[in-house]
């Protein structure tokens, strides 16, 4: 690898999760100094990801794939250690998280786009492109509750595509929609990687399929296995 500019540096992080809240007053008092039971997900975990790399994170359920992405995104924080990111991080932990189903597709683009950090002036210009990419032209003024699941994921993915991410985090949401839309998404991701952007993808299925997709155009594929 010639390019060694870092995109993400994870330095010896430890992350413990709360399993459950104490149910009775007695356990509350017993654990008054550390009131919640904890379960370690990461212990002294380090990882460096460079710009232009596609990282595929694999591992069984509960191994911390989603947690790792949430840590990189800054949604949750490590108990110990440090995480540094360079550039704009856009997480797609779940497609359509935070969508409001009473509101229309267009209204949801405004909310979601703002959360992904797109400024008003830019968003106004991007909205036609987002709608085009999602192929939802006929449905954009209809409440989301009337959408099919596929339509919702297409909308969410399209907004993320135009969020100008430097580091894109995908949590098992790589190929969405029908075959045509999948091909479009893959094309987009390939172009994204060509521009020296970083992709971090977590999955526990179809790894071989993903790797062949990327290998065609990009050789910087790194596989990280959690256990």
């Amino acid at each position, binding site marked *: 690898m010639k390019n060694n500019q870092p995109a993400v540096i994870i330095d010896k992080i430890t992350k413990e*999760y*709360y399993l459950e*809240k104490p149910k009775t007053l007695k356990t509350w008092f017993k654990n008054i100094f550390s009131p*919640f039971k904890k379960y370690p997900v990461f212990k002294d975990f380090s990882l460096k990801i460079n710009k232009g790399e596609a990282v595929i994170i694999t591992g069984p359920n509960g191994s911390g794939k989603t947690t790792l992405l*949430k840590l990189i*995104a*800054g*949604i*949750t*924080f490590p108990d110990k250690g440090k995480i540094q990111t360079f550039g704009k*991080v856009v*997480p797609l*932990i*779940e497609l359509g*998280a*935070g969508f*409001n189903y*009473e*509101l229309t597709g267009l*209204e949801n683009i*405004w*909310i979601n786009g*703002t*959360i*992904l*950090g797109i*400024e*008003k002036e830019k968003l106004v210009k991007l909205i036609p492109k987002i709608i085009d990419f999602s192929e939802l032209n006929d449905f954009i003024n209809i409440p989301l509750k009337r959408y099919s699941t596929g339509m919702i994921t297409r909308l969410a993915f399209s907004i993320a595509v135009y969020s100008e991410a430097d580091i894109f985090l995908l949590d098992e949401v790589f190929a969405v929609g029908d075959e045509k839309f999948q091909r479009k998404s893959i094309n987009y991701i390939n172009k994204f990687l060509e521009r020296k952007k970083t992709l971090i993808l977590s999955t526990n299925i179809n790894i071989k399929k993903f790797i062949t997709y990327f290998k065609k155009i990009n050789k910087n594929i790194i596989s990280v296995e959690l256990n």
Partner: protein
Amino acid sequence: MSKKLKLYFQLLEVLTIRELKSRYRASILGPLWIIIQPLLTTLFLAVVFEKIVKIKINNIPYFLFLYSGIMVWNFFEQSINLAKESLVWNRDLITKSKFNKEVLPISYVLSKIIDYLVNFLVFLILLIIYHFKIKLLFFITIFNLFPLFLTVTSVSLIFSALNAIFRDFGRIIEFILLLGFYATPIIYSENMIPEKIKIFIQINPLSYIINFNRQVFFENKVDYYNLFLPAIFGVIFFIISWLIFKKLEKKIVDLI
């Protein structure tokens, strides 16, 4: 304005609009509820406390007296009832995307300002119906929105964070609000309170806000003390609750 600050206000704006749209779109009577609800509340309370308990307020129609208090209280109570659930309702958003979480409770409070302004206009109409002269001076009470907003937001920030971590807290808030209603001069006036317990009224910022409004409307008198004291209190309270919220914010993601 820096890009970050701009996006912050943009987020507040879209979330407030989201709340307003989704609140009224699904109901048939829609925004009419803003007007109906306080009128009915005032009517019921007026029947109980004027006709049965026989409270008398000198020279002021009791219905108007009551409404001027209900107007402020409703903004307080309804904002808090929405804001306390704001983090819980938006759990998906909190656990899956990155943003400043305080915009959630604040956006719900902002959405209720519209209701307050509508109720203010309704109050002016009520004054006309009761043959009061509308004076330009009445609009000075709009300035009261500043301490009122700060007080409501401060309480909302703390309650929403605590409710996200301990769901039982939502139940406790119901009692606090019930207590607050009777500890605020809404159905009675401040001078009806025995000296001994007056302190409870004096530590309540809502008392000052309601008193200020009533003096303006019914005595055409402006008491700046009642305007600035809650404003100063509001600023301090807001800073403290903001800091508490920011302290809890990082934990909320894992505990909600």
